[in-house]
C-alpha cells in the first residue's frame, strides 16, 4: 500500500486532488487538461450517485433488518443479565437474602433522576461484610457495608459541588428506604460534562 498506489491521471495529478476540488469551478489547468476534464465528469457523477445511494439506502424500507431482530437481541441480553453479580445482604434464621447488583444500580439511578443536571453513568457496588464468628447466625451481628462508586455526567454550567452533595444525600436516603440497609460509602465521580 505505498503512496504511489494512489491513482494518477495522465497529466500526473492524483484523483484525490481532482476530488478535493470537485465542488469548485475547474482550475486553469483543469479547463485545458483532457485527463482532468474526464476525471471531473466521472467524479461528479460518482459524487451525485454517492449522495443518491446514501439517501435512498437511508429511506429504503427494504433496507432494514426484519422486525423481530430487536426482540431476539434483547432476549439474549435479558437472559444473560440475570446471571449477574448477587450481593448477600442478610442471613436470617430461615435462610439468606441476596440482591442483584443490577437491582441496587437501578435504585441508585432512579434516585439520581430526581437531581436536575445529573446523568447516571457507571455504578460499581462492593459489599463488605465484617467477618462473622461461627456462632453467629442472625442478621443483627453482621450488617453489610456498601461501597458505592458512582460515575455521572453533569450538565455544563451547574454548581457541581452543590449538585453532587444533593445527589449523595438523595442516595443516602433512597437505599435505606428502598432496600433496608445503610448506604455506606458513596463515592461520586463527575467524569464528563454534557451540553444542555
Amino acid at each position: 500500500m505505498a503512496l504511489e498506489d494512489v491513482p494518477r491521471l495522465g497529466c500526473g495529478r492524483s484523483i484525490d486532488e481532482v476530488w478535493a476540488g470537485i465542488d469548485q469551478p475547474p482550475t486553469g489547468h483543469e479547463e485545458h487538461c483532457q485527463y482532468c476534464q474526464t476525471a471531473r465528469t466521472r467524479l461528479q457523477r460518482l459524487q451525485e450517485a454517492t449522495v443518491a445511494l446514501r439517501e435512498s439506502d437511508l429511506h429504503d424500507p427494504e433496507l432494514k433488518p426484519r422486525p423481530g431482530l430487536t426482540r431476539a437481541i434483547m432476549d439474549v441480553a435479558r437472559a444473560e443479565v440475570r446471571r449477574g453479580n448477587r450481593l448477600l445482604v442478610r442471613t436470617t434464621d430461615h435462610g439468606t437474602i441476596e440482591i442483584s447488583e443490577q437491582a441496587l444500580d437501578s435504585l441508585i439511578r432512579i434516585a439520581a433522576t430526581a437531581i436536575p443536571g445529573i446523568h447516571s453513568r457507571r455504578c460499581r457496588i462492593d459489599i463488605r461484610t465484617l467477618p462473622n464468628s461461627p456462632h453467629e447466625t442472625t442478621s443483627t451481628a453482621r450488617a453489610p457495608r456498601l461501597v458505592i462508586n458512582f460515575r455521572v455526567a453533569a450538565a455544563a454550567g451547574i454548581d457541581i459541588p452543590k449538585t453532587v452533595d444533593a445527589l449523595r444525600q438523595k442516595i443516602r436516603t433512597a437505599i435505606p428506604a428502598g432496600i433496608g440497609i445503610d448506604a455506606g460509602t458513596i463515592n461520586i465521580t463527575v467524569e464528563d460534562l454534557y451540553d444542555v
Partner: protein
Amino acid sequence: MDDHGPGPEPDEGDEGSIVARAQDGDLAAFEHLVIAYQDRIFRLAYRMLNDRLDAEDVVQETLTSSWRSLPLLADVNAFGAWLYRLATNKCLDLLRRRSTHAETSTDPDELLGIGEHGFPQAPAGTDPADQAQWSAQQEGLAAVLNTLPPAQRACWLLREIHGRSYTEISDTLKISPTTVRGMLARARHHIAEGMGQWR
C-alpha cells in the same frame, strides 16, 4: 430546566450516559442503543455482503457480542465507533470465509454483471425520466461497489455512506490513516471508472 421523566430514561443528547448505563446491565438503555444502531449496521452489512440474511446475522452478532463485552469498553463516547468496528470486521471475516469456500470469480469485469439483485428502488413519485437515469446511476454504483476488494469497499462505505472519520476507519481496518486515504482514492477511481463502463 432539566426535564427528567419519572424513570431513568436515556437522554437523546448524551449517548455516553446511555452507554454507561448499558455497561452496568441496564436493559432499557441497551435496547435504546440497539434501536439506534441496528438499521445503520444492517445497511453497512448489506452493502458489504449483498445478502439480507447474512447482514441480519452480522447485526445480531455485533449487538449481542457488544452486550457481552460492553463492560470492557473504556470510553463510553466511543460506542458507535466500536460497533462499526465489530460489524465491519465480522463482514470481512465472513467474506474471507466465503472466498475460501466458494468458487466465486474475483475478476472485476466478470463480477460487474452479477450485481443485479438488491438494488434500491427509486423513491416513489420520481419523474420517470429522472427515475431511469437515477436507477441507472444507482445500479452502476451498487454493481461497481461489489467489484471492489472487501477492505476497499468497507473503507468507501464507512467514509462515504456512513461518514466515519479517517482515524476511526484506520483503527477498524488496522491500517494507517495515510493508507486509508490512498485506499479511498483507489476506491473512488475504480468506482468512477466502473460507472463509466457501465454507461
